[in-house]
């Protein structure tokens, strides 16, 4: 089964957090890195983006929350619809979109000079949001990121003093504190130990009830464990990347339509 835009949006129109890329292409200068990418990322589920390095997964992810345009030479075409509204429309502010669509990066990037507590609340502060119960927000967010038990006694120590895995979960907690509709994760576990990886996967499993998750991963087992949909990106030498095949994760891994998908998910190239 292919998840079509119409099919799912009609059913889930009331839910917030449906993300859809329509005919997205991207360039860095004259170098075209993505061509005509169409993908629907349904709410309340996890979409995994897989594919070899350099095929444009990170670029695509950054297009989804308007981080792409921060690169001076970057350009794009097409549309990205969040709940059926184009996030690149003239009347939509990039800051507003980014506040609704959070992002977790490959390299953990907590604010080192801020305490753990301040790190969790930093998104609220940055967007000028005041909450009546900051302590509660901190605890809930850290619990969701399964970090609470490890740091509850030292919320005042700097965020930079945590281990890599803890830093990454702090970054997840920070993203969740602003209650985004969508969370984008770019290889969030590639720098983490197995235990932290498992924690992050549990977190993804827990939060998908409330947040649409899009995750880039090089780990096929991880893609199968955490995602419901999957998109396979590929780029031929010096050609822009595109989606070879997208659909239910069970289909991509169990019954791929394209031979290249079959080869990739079975570790035969890439």
């Amino acid at each position, binding site marked *: 089964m292919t998840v079509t835009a119409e099919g799912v949006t009609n059913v889930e129109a009331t839910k917030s957090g449906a993300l859809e890329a329509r005919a997205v292409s991207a360039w860095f200068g004259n170098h075209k890195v993505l061509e005509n990418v169409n993908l629907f990322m349904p709410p309340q589920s996890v979409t995994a983006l897989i594919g070899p390095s350099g095929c444009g997964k990170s670029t695509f992810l950054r297009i989804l*929350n308007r981080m792409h345009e921060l690169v001076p030479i970057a350009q794009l075409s097409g549309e990205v619809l969040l709940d059926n509204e184009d996030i690149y429309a003239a009347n939509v502010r990039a800051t507003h*979109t980014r506040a609704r669509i*959070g*992002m977790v990066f490959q390299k953990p*990037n907590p*604010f080192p000079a801020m305490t753990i507590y301040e790190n969790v609340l930093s998104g609220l502060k*940055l967007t000028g949001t005041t909450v009546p119960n900051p302590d509660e927000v901190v605890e809930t967010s850290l619990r969701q990121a399964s970090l609470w038990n490890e740091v509850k006694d030292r919320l005042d120590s700097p965020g930079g003093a945590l281990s890599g895995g803890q830093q990454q979960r702090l970054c997840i907690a920070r993203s969740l504190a*602003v209650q985004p509709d969508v969370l984008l994760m770019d290889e969030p576990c590639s720098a983490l130990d197995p235990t932290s990886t498992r924690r992050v996967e549990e977190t993804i499993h827990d939060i998908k009830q409330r947040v649409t998750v899009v995750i880039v991963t090089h780990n096929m087992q991880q893609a199968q464990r955490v995602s419901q949909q999957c998109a396979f990106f590929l780029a031929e030498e010096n050609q822009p990347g595109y989606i070879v095949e997208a659909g239910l994760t069970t289909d991509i891994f169990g019954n791929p339509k394209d031979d290249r998908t079959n080869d990739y998910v079975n570790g035969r190239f890439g």
Partner: protein
Amino acid sequence: MVPSQVTTDVPRTLLRTPTRSDRIYRGLAIGTGLLTLVILALIGLNLLLQSRTAIQSQGLRFLTSNAWSPQQAEPSFGIKAVLYWTIIIAFIALAIAIPVSIACALYLTELAPRQLQKPLRSLVDLLAAIPSLIYGMWGLLYLQPHMIPFATWISTKLDFVPFLRVSRPSFSSSALIAGVVVSLMVIPICTSVIREVFSQTPQGEKEAALAMGATRWEMIRTVVLPFGRGGIIGGSMLGLGRALGETIAVALIISPIFVIRPSVVETGANSVASLIALRFGEADALQRSGLVAAGLALFGLTLVVNTIAAFVVARSRSGAGVDI
């Protein structure tokens, strides 16, 4: 029974045999490092020796007296007022230069279009290459006539502020005008130090802030400024060192006075460096020695300032911020 190995369980001394090039490099590095210190010490010693006559003649009064009359029958001179005005001018200069430099550095690293960044950077650096004499002449011939109406206006409107109150309506050759000119000379130095530190802000942290919906300004406030705090402090201290020692521009603009008064907009100011420049040629042995002693005091002051600056900049490279 205790195994015999346990008795040998002491930290082992690791012997290193440095390679030849290592040794040469080490020697050179240590040598040049020491040489700087030796030169510094020799300069200090030389100043001390040459100022001995003056210090013997005046004793502690040299630091506590305002007047500068070494040519009288009963010579009496001290640098309290001169030091006071030196610091006032430097302070005015920094009060203008620090915010302007931070803004410049932010513009050059974060805001300016990429194609413009490099040429603008060179342009600001080029400002540092203009001889101070040119700044001084510009200040005297162009800035001063334009500053006087402003000084008049501000001192009448804000005459409840002691620094702006005047005893007579004479506004030329003031500490304010000298301070403004010195600030222009300090801005390029401050800007380039601050800019360097700003440009090292980790991209990841900047993106983290932006990805949460921060505006560019909020990102700067939360990430770039805290990261660059050491650079701001260090750059300012470096600028302070420069401002304290500025000679010719100040000498051209001020009309020397040897009293301490709060008003900075009124005619009259002073500085150690300009005092030396203006008096050295005509000075007899005693006054010469007195001028060297004034130079020694300035040397000590700038040394302390620059040491603090180096310390602060070195400590804050981690980006974790400094606790001052």
